[in-house]
């Protein structure tokens, strides 16, 4: 059988040179939408057995097993992000484990686009497009936050800090809009600079 050709939504976009942050499309991830009830012990146990890690039930958190991530999406929904090549096998494993249990696992790899943002200006750039204050606590690595970003539904996953690495996830059809928005708001010279303490005014 020939290898499937995967065309990612932003494959024709070039990263502009004049950005205050770095921006790349993540192209090698598969995504599985998983739904079930956390109070159903059978569901939680089966999911844990298939994923190798317990599903996070604390809002806006994630769990990791090797290269596979379980991102909290709602009180009964998770997004499993794993290497694209392993998606089909993992989905199969999940569906087998969840047989007969009130749940749903679907391959949604082509539904979303992931844009990786990296650098000291990432929080500031995201704040230009959302109502969230990323300078406050609660955004340590592993945090997941759904939000309205640049007028569209989006989600960020905090990958690491210092330097900040945030994965911005948007629906595929909005990928170019999100890319354009970041491109426009993260241009060098557009820094707001409020994340660093202001210099004390000169004493006269």
């Amino acid at each position: 059988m020939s290898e499937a050709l995967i065309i990612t939504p932003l494959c024709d976009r070039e990263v502009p040179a004049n950005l205050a942050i770095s921006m790349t499309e993540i192209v090698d991830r598969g995504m599985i939408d998983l739904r079930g009830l956390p109070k159903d012990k059978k569901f939680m146990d089966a999911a844990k057995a298939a994923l190798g890690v317990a599903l996070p039930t604390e809002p806006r958190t994630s769990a990791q097993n090797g290269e596979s991530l379980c991102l909290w999406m709602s009180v009964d929904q998770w997004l499993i992000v794993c290497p694209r090549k392993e998606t089909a096998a993992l989905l199969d494993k999940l569906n087998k484990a969840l047989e007969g249990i009130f749940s749903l696992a679907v391959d949604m790899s082509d539904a979303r686009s992931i844009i990786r943002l990296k650098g000291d200006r990432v929080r500031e750039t995201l704040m230009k497009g959302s109502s969230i204050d990323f300078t406050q606590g609660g955004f340590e690595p592993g945090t997941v936050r759904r939000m309205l970003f640049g007028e569209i539904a989006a989600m960020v996953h905090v990958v690491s800090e210092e330097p900040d690495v945030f994965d911005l996830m948007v629906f595929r059809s909005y990928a170019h809009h999100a890319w354009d928005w970041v491109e426009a708001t993260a241009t060098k010279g557009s820094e707001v600079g409020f994340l660093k303490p202001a210099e004390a005014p000169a004493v006269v």
Partner: protein
Amino acid sequence: MLVITCPVCGVEGEEADFHCGGEAHITRPATENPEGISDEAQRDYIYMRKNPKGVHFERWRCDRGCGKWFHACRDTVSMEILGYYGITQKPPATLLKKADPLWQAHFEAQLKKAKS
């Protein structure tokens, strides 16, 4: 601008992060007796709203959080949100007491209808 806290997932956000589903506790008449619905009952269901000045009950959705629906009690004058309760629940007695009497009448009528 309202600042809302989702009672389901605990996320705090501004109005645009949520979606207002309008007045709460509206019963669709056709679910009970589709053939016997009068034009007036259908009109009231679709168009007639309480619109009180003061404490009001509304449905809201956590659009950019957990995606779940919930009920909120809001003062239409001060814009203050006085409390939240589950989407399948009736307002707590303490909030109902503060509301316009037409809300009390609304629930009494619903109760009467359920008994008959």
